[in-house]
């Protein structure tokens, strides 16, 4: 019996010790969380991304190779594997920088591009329509004569697909140096473009707010008309730049909706600069993220604006927590992108600039916020160099994706981070 026990023990020990780990037992964790670089020779920056219902992801980036500045789209799956990739742009002396990519209602994708046709020249706006297979379908260039027969620099901020009463098209906004008031530097512009990328001539519009440095950030459709979110510093408000909105009628004219017309959203008492506007498809909220700037530096400023409550600042979901206190992180922190979370609250990503004596570094800060705007947790990504976020999205399984730009050696590459719902490189 003793001998049998001994033999059994030895056999057990040998079997356990010689147990071999295989692909099945180890598990492909790196598909659940990762950092990946995408790009080409030269420098590439990540700009935007779209998460599709079929679990594919479109990454939009800009590339500078052999002094040719173009843009590219990479279609990947949720493990980061490249399915398709394509570089667009004319190249040569024409500089094209993509700004925004959005899915269209008919299964394609629209890309907004800033384009400089002549070296040192002004910026134009270009729209490119591509299919899900990254095939270019159509494009249009709005030169500087669109708004008026005049020269001017246009910096497109976003393109928004819309479908209202069966009408499909795109709304484009940004800033232009073609100003309506003498002495202003920039005014916002808005275009409405139909499905065939033809400009609605009645809609070409400069809402003409009375600030000196106005910039349209996003224009979104509503039941009746549209909302333009913009940065402006109206003279009536002590020249403080802030998040503003302007209701727009269906013909493109600025208007007043109910009792609310042109209104300031941010009210920190300092200057605020809006960076991104996201619609929350679950409840119709508008999530606005940007920066609050004062002598103490830059902080993240975030407003969760309830559509149903109107535009009264005190009624924002995160009233009282609009300046996001990211756990007292050092440096200058700029809000970049926000996404509603299926789990709870919001996911916010910001860029933290730190002066480490002889070098400036930029890190990515990821935070989960409660609906009230309070910070649940923060994590940081970066290693003594430049790592910048551009867009954040949450996958249906709660994993978080951040696209941006990382420094690999001495070059910039488009970077994609995938972390768990706690912001960690863990399952």
């Amino acid at each position, binding site marked *: 019996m003793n001998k049998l026990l001994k033999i059994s023990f030895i056999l057990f020990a*040998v079997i356990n*010790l*010689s*147990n*071999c*780990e*295989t*692909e099945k037992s*180890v*598990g*492909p*964790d*790196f598909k659940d*969380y*990762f*950092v*990946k*670089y*995408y*790009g*080409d*020779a*030269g*420098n590439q920056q990540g700009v935007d991304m779209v998460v599709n219902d079929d679990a594919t992801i479109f990454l939009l980036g800009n590339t500078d*190779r*052999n*002094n040719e500045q173009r843009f590219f789209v990479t279609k990947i799956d949720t493990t*980061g*594997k*490249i399915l398709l990739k394509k570089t667009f742009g004319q190249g040569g002396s024409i500089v094209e920088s993509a700004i925004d990519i959005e899915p269209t209602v008919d299964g394609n994708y629209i890309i907004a591009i800033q384009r400089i046709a002549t070296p040192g020249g002004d910026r134009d706006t270009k729209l490119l329509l591509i299919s899900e297979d990254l095939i270019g379908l159509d494009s249009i260039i709005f030169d500087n004569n669109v708004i008026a027969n005049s020269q001017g620099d246009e910096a497109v901020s976003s393109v928004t697909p819309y479908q209202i009463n069966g009408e499909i098209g795109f709304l484009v906004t940004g800033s232009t140096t073609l100003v309506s008031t003498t002495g202003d530097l920039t005014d916002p512009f808005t275009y409405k473009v139909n499905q065939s990328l033809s400009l609605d001539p009645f809609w070409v519009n400069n809402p003409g707010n009375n600030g000196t440095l106005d910039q349209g950030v996003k224009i979104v459709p509503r039941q009746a008309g549209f909302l333009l979110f913009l940065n402006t510093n109206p003279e009536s408000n002590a020249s403080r730049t802030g998040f503003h909105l302007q209701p727009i009628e269906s013909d493109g004219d600025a208007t007043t909706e109910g009792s609310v017309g042109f209104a300031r959203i941010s009210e920190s008492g300092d200057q605020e600069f809006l960076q991104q506007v996201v619609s929350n498809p679950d409840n119709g909220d508008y999530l606005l993220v940007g920066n609050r700037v004062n002598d103490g530096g830059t902080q993240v400023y975030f407003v969760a604006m309830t559509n149903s409550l109107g535009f009264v600042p005190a009624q924002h979901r995160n009233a009282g927590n609009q300046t996001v206190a990211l756990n007292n992180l050092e440096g200058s922190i700029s809000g970049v992108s926000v996404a509603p979370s299926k789990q709870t609250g919001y996911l916010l990503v910001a860029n933290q600039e730190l002066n480490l004596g002889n070098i400036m570094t930029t*890190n990515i800060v990821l935070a989960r916020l409660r609906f009230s705007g309070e910070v649940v947790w*923060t*994590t*940081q*990504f*970066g*290693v003594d*160099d430049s*790592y910048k976020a551009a867009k954040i999205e949450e996958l249906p399984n709660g994993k978080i994706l951040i696209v941006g730009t*990382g*420094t*690999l*050696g*001495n*070059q910039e*590459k488009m970077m994609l981070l995938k972390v768990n719902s706690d912001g*960690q*490189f*863990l*399952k």
Partner: protein
Amino acid sequence: MRWLIDRRLLAKRWLTISMCFMLLLTTAFAQDKCDPESTLALATDEFNAGHFYGLEAILKPCISNKTFTKEQLVRAYQLLTQTYLILENPAAAEESYLNLLSANPEYVSNPERDPIDVVYLSKKFTATPIFSWFAHASGNITLPRVIEDNEINVGSRQQYTIKPRWSAGGGVIWNYNDKLTAELGLDFSSNTFGYYEDEIFIDDNLTMTENQLSLQMPFSIKYTHVRQGLSPYGYAGISGSLLLSSNQSFLLVDRTPGATASEGLEQSSEFELNNRFRRDAINRAAHIGAGFRWKYKLDYLFVDLRYSFGLNNIVRNDNSVRDVNDIFPSSVSAFKAGYIDDYFRLDQAMITIGYIKPIYKPRKLKRARTTRGVLKDVKSKSNE
């Protein structure tokens, strides 16, 4: 008649006294000046002359003085063993035979040379070592065997490279018998492997070198085909290792192409990291090996080749992308060099030279070995 008896008695006494005197003289001579060869010659003569009782006294001084060489000592104990067997003193005969084996653990009685009773006696004894010590030095190469391929720089081409390193150690051998042994070792091992990633975004490349120090504890079952001269052997076993340290060095070469070749720019960045926390501390492996051992005096020299198959993924999944800091979890290697560990096992190939020191232990067997062979030999001799 009575006087005759008295004279005989007197003569006997004189003879006894004379013999004792001579013995004393011989002993004194031997104690003072132990000439090993003369003593052995005298003892052999006395043995051949049937003078068994004085033999111990003749040989003991040289044994005590340790003036015999090993070979002479063996001859002395051979004589004593035979003498005690003749004098029917088995205890003393056994003790002498044990002493003989201590002098030459590899002594094997031979029916052609030794009396049959000594051959029989020898079957009750052995000097086979139960344990042996060994020490060795090895050259090794380490080969990562990939379980899951992980990549950061999408679209690049990766390969592992090998670099020779060394290990040294020792251990104990348990001799089940002459052929079958179990060995437990403890090695200090230095291992290195490299990783080369090319075509990173067309023009760049990354070189990573990982250096590890570990304690390895291999356990093997070995079978030796015992022969004169070189004895080949083969073995198999398992081993556990404790990782003491692990470091990685990185060299990333960035090439920024220009419109022309002369406008291109090449820059490199280099750094080192402690990556011990990304590795499992305890790892398992199975190994097979084969070699030759060569008899050197009473010990052995050996040369062998071993291949060790890593059994477990040595990469800690939880730490593969992040550093130890939970607040700032970015992995420096991942972010800065675009490197992440594949999930892999570590194989190792070794060539070893070593030395085996058997711990000979002359002892009486609980069960005497068979004498069948002896009888057969004796019979065949008789038939001749």
